């Protein structure tokens, strides 16, 4: 019994019929047969990009060099015709999207078209798996814009996966996908929190992972990494450099923790021990 709505059943039946009569007739496309799409790896060794499709039938290999060191063996073959039931090039053409040259099937979407595209995908039965925020500030190769938001879209019945990539400038807001998929709620909050992309139309755009008093977006590439002096609520002040000096035993340190005990001083602060004969 298929417990999902009749609509999905109908779609499934259609795809079954297509499988039997369509150009791919005879190909196994049932989910149980577990088709594996060959991994497409794009090596961007400066333009022009080379598309490499590993094909076990053709054991030609090249050494891919990066930074002077040879890494990995990459079997090279001509691009295979799109006979894979999980191929999304047809879908992308249907939605008027351009394909991004990436290892995963990625479509470039303009920010203003994102919600419309998402609604079209939702109508086809896709679900939202993940939202990835990316900051290309220090990327070694030129990118169109600083930020990108990737939506990981997946079809739970025919197992097609598509990444929607939206390029964004700093401070440029993006339409929220919450009206399309409720799953976008936390996912977009996370991107907002860690990457600082604002989502228009999100009903509850709050920080989700970092503390309320943290300023900035930690996953941005210009977020400073390092130690911060901390003032605790009880008035204790911790300067990282002085703290480290304390624990290495060179100075008494500001915390007074362990450092002086190790050098034989501060016996009055020895930790309490169990008295002879057990607790009284």
């Amino acid at each position, binding site marked *: *019994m*298929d*417990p*999902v*709505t009749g609509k999905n059943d109908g779609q499934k039946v259609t795809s079954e019929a297509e499988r039997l009569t369509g150009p791919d007739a005879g190909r196994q496309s049932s*989910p149980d047969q*577990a088709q*594996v799409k060959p*991994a497409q*790896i794009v*090596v*961007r*060794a400066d333009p022009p990009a080379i598309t490499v499709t*590993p094909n076990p039938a053709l054991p030609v290999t090249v050494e*891919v060099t*990066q*930074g002077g*060191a040879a*890494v*990995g*063996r*990459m079997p090279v073959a001509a691009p295979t015709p799109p006979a894979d039931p999980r191929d999304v090039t047809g879908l992308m053409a249907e939605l008027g999207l351009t394909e991004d040259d990436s*290892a*995963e099937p*990625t479509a470039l979407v303009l920010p203003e078209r994102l919600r419309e595209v998402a609604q079209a995908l939702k109508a086809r039965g896709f*679900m*939202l*798996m*993940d939202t*990835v925020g*990316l*900051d290309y500030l220090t*990327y*070694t*190769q030129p990118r169109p814009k600083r930020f990108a938001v*990737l939506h*990981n879209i997946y079809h*739970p019945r025919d*197992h097609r*996966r598509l*990444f929607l990539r939206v390029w964004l400038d700093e401070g440029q807001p993006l339409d929220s996908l919450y009206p399309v*998929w*409720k*799953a976008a*709620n*936390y*996912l977009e909050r*996370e991107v907002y929190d*860690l990457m600082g992309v604002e989502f228009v139309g999100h*009903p*509850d755009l709050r*920080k*989700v*992972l*970092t*503390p309320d008093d943290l300023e900035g977006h*930690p*996953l941005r590439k210009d*977020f400073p*990494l390092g130690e911060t002096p901390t003032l605790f609520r009880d008035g204790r002040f911790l300067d990282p450099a002085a703290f480290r000096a304390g624990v290495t035993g060179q100075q008494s340190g500001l915390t007074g923790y362990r450092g002086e005990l190790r050098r034989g001083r501060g016996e009055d602060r020895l930790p309490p021990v169990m008295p002879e004969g057990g607790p009284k």
Partner: protein
Amino acid sequence: MTLKDQDRTAVKERETLRDLRQDPDSGTLPRRQMTPDHQESTIDERLHGRTGALLHTEMMSLNVGPQHPSTHGVLRLVVDMDGEYVVKVTPHMGYLHTGFEKTFENRTYQQGVTYAPRTDYLHCFSHELSYVLSVEKLLQAEVPERATTIRVILHELGRMHSHLVFVGTGLLDLGALTPFFYAFREKESLQDLFEAVCGYRMNQGYFRVGGLSRDIPDGWPAMVSRFLVQMEKGVQEYTTLFANNPIFQDRARGVGIIPPDVALDLGLTGPNLRASGVPLDNRKDNPYCGYETYDFEVVTSPDGDSLARFNMRLWEFGESIKIVRQALERLRPGPVSDPNRKISLPPRHELETSMEAVIHHFKLVTEGFHPPVGEVYVPTESARGEVGYYIVSDGGSMPYRVKIRAPSFVNLQALEYACVGAQFADLITILATIDPVLGDVDR
């Protein structure tokens, strides 16, 4: 309509609600409570909703957690209650946020294996596996057959480990103390197996990019076989202990129903989605590590309630046992890491005789390898759902960006939906069956 009439209507409504909840066949709350817009409780709901009939009542906000055993970690819930009924749940997470994704960006690829298992500390091997698979896809590394088989065994043992904790602590939340001890008996045996193979009982970090850190010890497959026999007996015990227990069934049946369309809308994956009847399992649908060659079933249930989510884990024990049995039969002697010296460390004995080995060792330890530029994602199936590492490489020896698709984080959204209209005690049941791991939520 007088005030009294209104009260009577409210009482009647509540009784129908209760009847509906206790009838296993209807098994659902009134449809209007099941609207997808579960985020906000409307003014209308607050003023004219199912308020207490004969008493003066008002909405009450109740704080649950963050330090509470039944929140399965450090999760704070602010629950808006109308009498005994939940109107709105607002989870506050982030207490365990330690910035794993930022840490990944500042460690070499091989060092990242240390951080991956610490996200989901109950099914560590899932995150480890997902991470190394992504890096291997980037590198096009060749993982030897033996390493893949051992990975499958450990991946499934890890799934059992996670489900055992689910069974133990989930029932503990419902007030049943005994199953905890039964489940943790098997869990201890499992942790002994993990300890034997890599020295750690949790947060193993045993996999390496291109294979395993070392081979399994002698006699380990026999230990696993013995454990599987014990586990089968254990599953029978859990079934008789609680799955057929009427008290437990009353607590769980019809509680927190998530219909399949809502489950997909909320992005649920894993046993929680399969409990709603959608047979999505990456081991079948996006096979990795040769799962397509193993004979096992994807268990689903059409009910979508807490009982289904409980039973889902019990049934999955059997499938995991089947997979591990098959994998043990396939175990053949052989290498356990990619022979490519640009990826794997050279064997220890070669360091004394070969200068090249020393150089490779030095380069790998100090700098690591440089995968080609690209962005990859490999979905895997953990005990909680789809785990995937979206890794962006800029050609350096450290990942440019790592995004963890954490199933618990997405699954937690179901809490806001499934708890509305339930009683407070049911909230604990629903939270237990959604089974979030807060390390996975907060990362």
